[in-house]
């Protein structure tokens, strides 16, 4: 009997009638319908056209208007889900508690979204050596087990990263470039999709985008699981 990865209830009798009647196979989902409903998908016609945040119409949100004043870079992000309570709880469990198998909850959906972007190369945001030692995995790569991705970025070796979650918004917007390009040859002339788990202030993914663009990418876009 399959058990929901998130609430641990048995999923055997939770199929809806329509699911049973449909002639197509049900996509193997690792969490129950009830838990899945807690996540709020963002539709691009009701989202910020720059960062992907959920809005009532397709416009540019205030944060992004500020970004556009100071940056010259052309960068658009798409976010799949609202960073609501359920998503925060998921991230807490997956990323901070380190329950790696939970990646399976979003894997099929996220893979579809990545493929839909039709980029030449997919670049997950890297994590530090220290994080690999303690967490044991890169939470973005964990979501992409069936996607071909490249790693042209690395974290600066002297980068002693203060935990993002312990900083306030202002500190994060000020934080300096954490990345370097370790393999520029992967990027030149390509359309690049940078993938991250959560878009919070946009600082991290924009640092990455800037480097990639400067290294000669033809186009740089972002995709995050949540915003």
């Amino acid at each position: 009997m399959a058990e929901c990865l998130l609430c641990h209830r048995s999923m055997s009798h939770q199929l809806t009638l329509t699911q049973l009647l449909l002639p197509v196979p049900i996509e193997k989902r690792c969490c129950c319908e009830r838990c899945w409903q807690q996540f709020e998908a963002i539709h691009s016609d009701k989202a910020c056209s720059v960062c992907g945040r959920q809005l009532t119409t397709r416009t540019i949100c205030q944060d992004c208007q500020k970004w556009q004043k100071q940056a010259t870079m052309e960068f658009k992000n798409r976010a799949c889900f609202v960073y609501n309570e359920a998503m925060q709880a998921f991230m807490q469990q997956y990323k901070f508690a380190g329950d790696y198998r939970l990646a399976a909850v979003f894997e099929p959906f996220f893979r579809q979204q990545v493929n839909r972007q039709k980029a030449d190369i997919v670049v997950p945001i890297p994590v530090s050596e220290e994080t690999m030692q303690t967490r044991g995995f890169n939470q973005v790569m964990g979501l992409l087990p069936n996607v071909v991705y490249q790693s042209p970025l690395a974290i600066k070796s002297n980068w002693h990263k203060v935990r993002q979650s312990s900083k306030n918004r202002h500190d994060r917007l000020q934080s300096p470039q954490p990345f370097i390009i370790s393999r520029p040859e992967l990027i030149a002339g390509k359309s690049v999709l940078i993938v991250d788990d959560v878009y919070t202030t946009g600082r991290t993914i924009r640092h990455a985008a800037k480097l990639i663009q400067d290294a000669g990418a033809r186009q740089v876009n972002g995709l995050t699981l949540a915003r």
Partner: protein
Amino acid sequence: MDVSEFFGRQLLSSELPVGWKERVSKLQVQPGIEVMATTVRCNRCGVTTTKQRCTLPNNQFYCPSCIQLGRVSTLNSLVSLPEPNRFERINQKDVLTWKGTLSKTQDKCATDILTVFQERRQHLLWAVTGAGKTEMLFRGIAWALSQGLRVGLASPRIDVCNELFPRLVQAFKRTDIQLLHGRSDIPYRYCQFTICTTHQLLRFKVAFDVLIIDEVDAFPFAQDDGLWFAAQQAKKADGALLFLTATPGKKLFQMIQRKELSISYLPLRYHGHLLPTITCRLASKWQLKLEKGRLPRSLIVQMQQRLKHNIRFLLFVPHVAQLPAVQTSLQHTFPNEQIVTVHAGDPDRLEKVQLMRSEEINFLVTTTILERGVTFPGIDVFVLGADDAVFSSAALVQIAGRAGRNVARPTGDVIFWCQSFAPNVLEAIKQIKYVNRKGRVLQQVRAEDNG
């Protein structure tokens, strides 16, 4: 962080402050995960997991089973320090500050428990709901504390821990007592007496000279071998282990049969009465009929009788999804009654329970045993669909135990409506009969004593 926080504890190396691993002498370090061919085994919770479910990149593994307590993995290890029993000695006669008295039966049980602790045995006390278990522990605990022993009291349920804590603080005012569970913000301290959830036991190692586990069969550890594992590693190898339960499960019976556990009974409730016996009625296809808006005729008749004689009752149904249909049907049959339904996740649960408690309503339709300590004196109990798998035999005994509980109406009626005599129903009936048989003998002895 103080070194004493490691005494008898089993923590993750990643929780150690920098440099401690080298600095603290006698620190015992053990791998957290044993890697086998296709599975891994966690040294903290004892659970074996197939590699497929718990592999990290770079051929590393973790334990998903006890991850709530901080992740055990091949990237960290388990550390602990031996328990030195470094406690302030209190004079034996000053330890217990409780001044109540025990009934004759309770008194005998209290002495039995003291002996279990003194002889460092593993024992099960089977006491019916409402027997006054906690007070019977005091004598044994007082002895252990006066001997400088480390004592733990664990329950699978947080609400039980929360309820016990203030009572024990009152009873042992001079002792340092800590309450420990996942939803408490109070940081861990080295204490002689710890009250915690059974889950928290996994963060102890060879710590307790005396370990008591209350409500062994309560959700969610009911069929869990993990509880046994946790208890065995949290107590000292020669430590005493006492299980308390109103509804022992299969595992405990097996252990009694294998003589790993001795057993004693307290088959009477505090007012000296037996548990109510269960009456079963067949109700075939009641779910289908309910969909058409009908409830079993015999149930309606029983309800009518209770309402006529002003006897209040609880009606249990198996599933939350059935509540609206039951409500509609009852409203139709009893247009003058206020029909209130409640379930565990109901946001208005407390208000609804209050309606029943303050006797503003005559009955409550529910899917759950409500909170511990929520008792309605003198009620009857009906269970529609008692054979449904959601009701374990333990739950059914607990449900039956809600009836009566009042000196004026000590037993109360308990009626189950079932489609078949399912094993859970039969087991519940058997357990109650068994306890009552013992109870009758005891009543007899008492009557002779008094006569």
